[in-house]
């Protein structure tokens, strides 16, 4: 992990846009990125084995799948490590880097930065030990709904991750405040603007899960509380659970908006509208959680209707992004000689892994965006709710657009951290395209299986109820699992190769980070955070006030948490 010694970086001339890391940055950012990749490694390889468990044909020929014998343990590890730990570590490391470089100042407190890292890393270790040590008891999946209660260490690991991320958020906010005091009439660079939005969303969203874990799940796990309320817990979880996906997505958008245009050889189309898009995420990404609860019996249909509308609105900034980034890519292709209406997608730098990974991610993300609009449509929910359509959707978005963009970032940031060139560019390209093919097949197969009634997160390979069509598509899912496993191996060959085997010095001047905002047209009121937080507060009150009143059931007095579970953890 952090014990990898980073050699002294050879100084390169400090021309604009040049990537030059000082030792302090390399350690801090390197620690976060490398820990993130180790967390991902412990989760990602569970994925293909889950796909094998879900395939009736595979199970028929290999009744006992080696390595990961307990499917639900693998699902828990895959979700918790990939979606919670990998993302949080990676986002914080990447955002420190962007903030320091864009604002040209170190983060507010290096000490707090390390304290946050230490908390999160302890959380990671505790979580891994718990999932490996108590496979049955800790198999509560990454949504950990009660009355399934995991060992207390599971929740303590989560608490440490979230508290660490709060410290990191404060560090970023205070760095911005210091910068703003020195530059009162300047617009903050777009990348930092987006990162501030991202951490505000994170801090608001995590209130929900913090209340759930600290006041319901952890006390229940410790035996202090004997009762719980699953409906309240689900509502608190999804207050957190949907904005969480924007916390993953916005750093990828930072790369698409502020780095990809230069990496691809073009320029961003409209910076003011990019800011408007990010502000829309700030206001609309939290009050939408009920679209995960359309099938819940304890929440009224009218509130679900309001959240449907808000969910459709939160797709607007992504549509704006598609135009803005698409136009930037078109300008890049025109610079490279594209002439006709439809040749510009092909005249991209498909041979550059950093660009290709982001383009491949966008293709998957477009599919994920439309499957998401279907999920958000309340009347279609009964067709796809809790079926394998849902993991198909979020593997196109999180596993496709977001993760491939993080991998693109890794392919330039890791060499800068290590001071060595990427181990192998052809391997990186092979990784990107196998990922694109594998995830496309995965999305298609899981989506189709879901439409044929196959449930998500179940050992469908042994289920007695599968239709032949669902069985066929689940077999196809196993095929995609093989392709994605190859892609993952390629990713880690390059990762460890760059860390330990690469001998070439890192290429200089490759990182396109804005240090000052070239934007003179964005209105300054876009940066009046109080207004936007106020708008978010009002919207939260409208969208969630009635929901919590209903779930807490005040009409019958203060008698929440009255349900006593008869069985605790999922027993074998």
């Amino acid at each position, binding site marked *: 992990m952090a014990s990898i010694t980073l050699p002294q970086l050879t100084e390169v001339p400090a021309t604009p846009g040049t990537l030059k890391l000082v030792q302090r940055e390399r350690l801090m950012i390197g620690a976060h990125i490398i820990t993130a990749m180790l967390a991902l490694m412990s989760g990602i390889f569970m994925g293909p084995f889950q796909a094998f468990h879900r395939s009736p044909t595979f199970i028929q020929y290999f009744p006992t799948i080696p390595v990961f014998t307990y499917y639900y343990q693998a699902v828990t590890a895959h979700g918790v490590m990939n979606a919670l730990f990998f993302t949080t570590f990676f986002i914080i490391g990447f955002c420190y880097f962007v903030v320091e470089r864009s604002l040209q100042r170190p983060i507010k407190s290096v000490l707090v930065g390390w304290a946050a890292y230490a908390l999160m890393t302890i959380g990671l270790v505790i979580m891994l030990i718990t999932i490996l040590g108590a496979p049955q008891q800790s198999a509560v999946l990454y949504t950990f709904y009660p009355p399934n209660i995991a060992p207390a260490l599971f929740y303590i690991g989560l608490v440490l991750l979230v508290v660490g991320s709060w410290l990191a958020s404060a560090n970023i906010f205070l760095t911005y405040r210091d910068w703003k005091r020195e530059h009162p009439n300047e617009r903050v660079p777009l990348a930092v603007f987006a990162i501030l939005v991202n951490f505000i969303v994170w801090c608001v969203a995590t209130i929900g899960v913090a209340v759930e874990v600290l006041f319901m799940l952890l006390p229940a796990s410790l035996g202090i509380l004997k009762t719980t309320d699953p409906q309240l817990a689900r509502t608190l979880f999804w207050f957190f659970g949907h904005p969480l996906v924007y916390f993953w997505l916005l750093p990828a958008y930072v790369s698409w908006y502020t780095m990809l245009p230069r990496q691809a050889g073009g320029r961003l189309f409209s910076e003011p509208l990019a800011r408007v898009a990010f502000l829309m995420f700030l206001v609309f990404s939290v009050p939408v959680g009920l679209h995960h609860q359309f099938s819940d019996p304890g929440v009224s249909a009218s509130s679900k209707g309001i959240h449907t509308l808000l969910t459709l609105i939160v797709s607007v900034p992504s549509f704006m992004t598609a135009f803005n980034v698409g136009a930037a890519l078109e300008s890049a292709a025109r610079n490279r000689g594209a002439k006709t209406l439809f040749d510009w997608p092909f005249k991209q730098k498909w041979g550059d892994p950093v660009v290709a990974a982001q383009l491949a991610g966008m293709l998957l993300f477009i599919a994920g965006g439309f499957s998401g609009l279907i999920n958000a449509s*309340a009347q279609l929910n009964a067709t796809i709710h809790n079926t394998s359509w849902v993991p198909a959707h979020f593997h196109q978005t999180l596993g496709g657009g977001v993760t491939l963009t993080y991998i693109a970032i890794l392919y330039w940031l890791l060499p800068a951290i290590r001071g060595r060139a990427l181990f192998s560019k052809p391997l990186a390209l092979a990784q990107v395209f196998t990922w694109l093919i594998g995830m496309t097949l995965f999305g298609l197969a899981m989506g189709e299986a879901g439409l044929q009634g196959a449930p998500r997160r179940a*050992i469908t390979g042994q289920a007695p109820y599968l239709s032949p069509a669902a069985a066929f598509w689940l077999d196809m899912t196993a095929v995609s699992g093989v392709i994605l496993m190859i892609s993952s191996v390629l990713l880690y060959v390059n990762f460890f190769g760059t860390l330990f085997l690469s001998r070439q010095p890192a290429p200089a001047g490759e990182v396109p980070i804005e240090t000052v905002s070239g934007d003179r047209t964005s209105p300054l009121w876009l940066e009046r955070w109080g207004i936007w937080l106020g708008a978010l507060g009002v919207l939260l009150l409208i969208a969630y006030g009635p929901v919590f009143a209903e779930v807490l059931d005040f009409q019958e007095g203060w008698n929440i948490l009255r349900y006593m579970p008869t069985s605790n953890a999922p027993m074998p």
Partner: protein
Amino acid sequence: MEINKFERYWLIAVGVTLGAFIAATIVAVTVFGIRLPSPVERVNPQRLDQTIFASPGVRKIADNRYEAVIVAKSWAFNAGPEAGSPPVLRFPRRSQVTFYVTSQDVMHGFQIEGHTINLELVPGQVARATVNFNRPGEYNIICNHYCGAGHHVMYGTIIVE
């Protein structure tokens, strides 16, 4: 703040697209009568014997109209002794069935293949949904919410005759 001409066209197209999605939702609710679950009643999962869930099963309430009361527990659906385990429920063609379902232990799911019924079974809450069975055939009831090690074998069958 200036907005480019093409970007304006794009935003209008986005507005129209989302308008179509919203219109589809409204049509689904008003014309096709698709309803999302709404609160029915709370029950104490440990005191189900004092509620309608004391005797699960299917009751005929009118011509071609039925009520089915089902209790989910790890890892089976209990639809009364007549239905057996895993339960098999039979309805004539063109019958309308209202399901009342709850869980007595952990979270479960209740989905019927090929029909617009897909419920989260939250302990302490009664889930209700009405389904029209118009096409003859066999449709599985699938628990689609993770409920522990035996989750994938929790199911039932509906036969429309």
